[in-house]
């Protein structure tokens, strides 16, 4: 009985959906990052409300990891037929496992890079509070972190794209 239930549930399609979920977890990193940056931004704006726009730009930068996670999750969902009319495909366990494995780079890197980028963005906001004209430098420092999220996105994408269903 138990094995029957297990077989019903833990099949290839389930693993693929689990993969999509893991990819979407990259949003954790963005949430943390945007949160950290937002705290710094509020502090700066309390002193000088005119800096709202600049601080907002920097705060938005760690938000991209969540988007990358969403992107991979979306591609997986589309690939396995969860979106669109065709309905969920029946995947073999290896197929599901491949997709699950492919989702890990963006899921994991997204979490940590989003957090780290949030800290860099917060420091950039501090920079803007003292020298608003140097915002571009703060943005570039923050974007340096994002490189690794971009690389993870790329790897996840190429892997998901490469899995034959």
């Amino acid at each position: 009985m138990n094995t029957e239930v297990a077989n019903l549930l833990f099949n290839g399609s389930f693993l693929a959906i689990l993969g999509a979920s893991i990819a979407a977890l990259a949003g954790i990193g963005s949430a943390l990052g945007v949160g950290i940056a937002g705290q710094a931004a509020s502090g700066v704006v309390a002193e000088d409300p005119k800096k709202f726009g600049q601080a907002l730009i920097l705060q938005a930068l760690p938000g991209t990891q969540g988007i990358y996670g969403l992107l991979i999750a979306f591609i997986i969902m589309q690939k396995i037929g969860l979106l669109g009319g065709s309905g969920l495909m029946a995947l073999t366990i290896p197929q599901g496992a491949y997709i699950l494995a492919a989702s890990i780079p963006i899921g994991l890197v997204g979490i940590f890079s989003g957090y780290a980028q949030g800290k860099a963005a917060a420091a950039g906001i501090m920079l803007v509070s003292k020298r608003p004209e140097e915002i571009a430098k703060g943005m570039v420092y923050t974007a340096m972190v994002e490189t690794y999220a971009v690389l993870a996105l790329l790897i996840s994408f190429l892997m998901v794209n490469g899995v034959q269903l």
Partner: protein
Amino acid sequence: MKQLTAIGHSSVRAELMEQLMTLGVVEISDQEAKLGESEWKALVKTDRNDGSVGRYDNWINRTTQALEALEKYGTEKKPLFKTRAPITLAAFEDSLKERHQIEKNTEILTVYSNKLAELQATQNKLEASRMGLIPWKEYDLPLELKETKEVDIILGGIPSAANPDLLKQEVLAATEECTFELVNGDSEQYYIAILCTKAVRQEIDEILKGYGFNRAQFGDLSGSASKNITMIDEKLAVIEGERAKVIEGIQGMEGERQNFELLHDYLVLKRDRAMIRERLLITKQTFYLDGWFPAAATAKVEALLTEKECYYTIREPEKGEETPVLLLNGSMTGPFEAITRLYSLPDSRGIDATPFFAIFYAIFFGMMLSDAAYGVILTVSTFLILKKFKLEGMAGRLMKMFFYCGISTTIWGILFGGYFGDLITVVAATFFNADVVIPALWFAPMEDPMKLLMFSFILGGIHIFLGMALDGYLSIKDGRPMDAVFDIGLWYILLIGLVLLLAGVSPDIGKWMSIVGAVGILVTGGRHNKGIGRITGGLSSLYGITGYLSDVLSYSRLLALGLATGVIASVVNTMGSLAGGGITGVILMIIAFSIGHSYNIAINALGSFVHSCRLQYVEFFGKFYKSGGEAFEPFREKTKYVEILREDH
């Protein structure tokens, strides 16, 4: 840049300075250093006039304050961008005939502003004391009553961390000659009133001390707390009324805004003309100045100095001499100066990178945003803004740059077949049951990502090679041609060889090129070192190959961010189509479309901007760019609100 030294007669000084300001092409240098030299010091002194500068500054401050008050409380709609209004010299001078009246009006506004500040201060004070009284609202004895003949009244609070019930028990257990009332409690304190006979006062004080008791301070307030609160509320209402009257007064002055702006600019011109005098050296009869101007302005500067009968010399900068930096670019690449300036101006002996990366910037931006519809939106909106507002400086440059980037985005969008992502396909399928696909002019990145990845790397390779070529050019210009051969040429051979070898185009040539390049770098890399350093230097130079690898890989973001735009757009479209056809479907689609695509265009335009910058700053500038130049700051009319037009210009 050319260096100018001029000496003239004192009688023409004021006139000359005024015309130099109008001309606005000469940066007059600071003479602090010369005054330190004894030979100069014996001859000249500075023409500084702090008194009049200070007077003008005072007036400027007052005018600025008046304008700020109008800005803050005025009812006029503020324009999206601040631009300088053009005005003819005659009109400018004409409006300022009534200068004294305008000055008087600024004083009225100063009075209003001060009054507002004063009201604010009183209000803050009243509100603070109101805050202190609120917890005691329920306590109805007069606050000034501290004791009677037999009884002491103790008012105060204990921290909210303490337990007031325990305190009460302890107090009541100790003595019966008292009452204990918990008046109020908030997140910070519990407010307590104790009435006790004088005999037990000391005992109670001891217990209270253990609870961190703080006596309440009411200053010289009299009457009950609630009566005081009512009084404060009345006063606050009066202040509010007065404030409204003052603001009304300020709003009544709004018609004067333009005059204030003219006055501000007039004063700034006067102040700057007074201030520049500290950069002139004078004797009894003559004055001396030196400075820099762009070579293109030579004729005008010479004509002016000749007209004023000054003695002058003009020379080219010496080799290695630092000069102020002015970026000169045409109308196509000029807007991209914004990116160079955001990084840092180039060293005066270096090179302005703008014309070299401008086209790459536009291409990278377009590839990352890569949606024809977004591109059109960007192009049209920036075009309209540029048409409506005469933007100057950084804002103008950025706006024009985004205009070009929008065109590039449109082109890439058409090449990749993105029009609001796959909106047309989705709409056709959801509402019309049709199968419409706008084919990509080149290819759809989602279908063949590897192709785009390779293309990104090739583009990146070209970009990096250009950066290296510029480094080589600088070496040659600097008289070190061998550096260009060893540090750039050998790398070219090695890198091109590796590409040929790995791509399998012509493995044989590739192999030999790689070997020649690698050995060459190994041998020459440590040529500036001594002894063992010659060998390790070569090795560490060759190790630099990892840098080139990661540089090229960095361009994969062109693919990744391009995909992000497309996929998010299709997520939005899919969400919009979830309700199917019919009215609800249309409504959902419109909502999803307007919110989703606005969000997508905003976040991805920001991403494209930042990452295009990064590719220039890190991968491209890293190869050759030397920053740290001082900006060219000519003596000119630095007006803020108006641009003075002259017929003869």
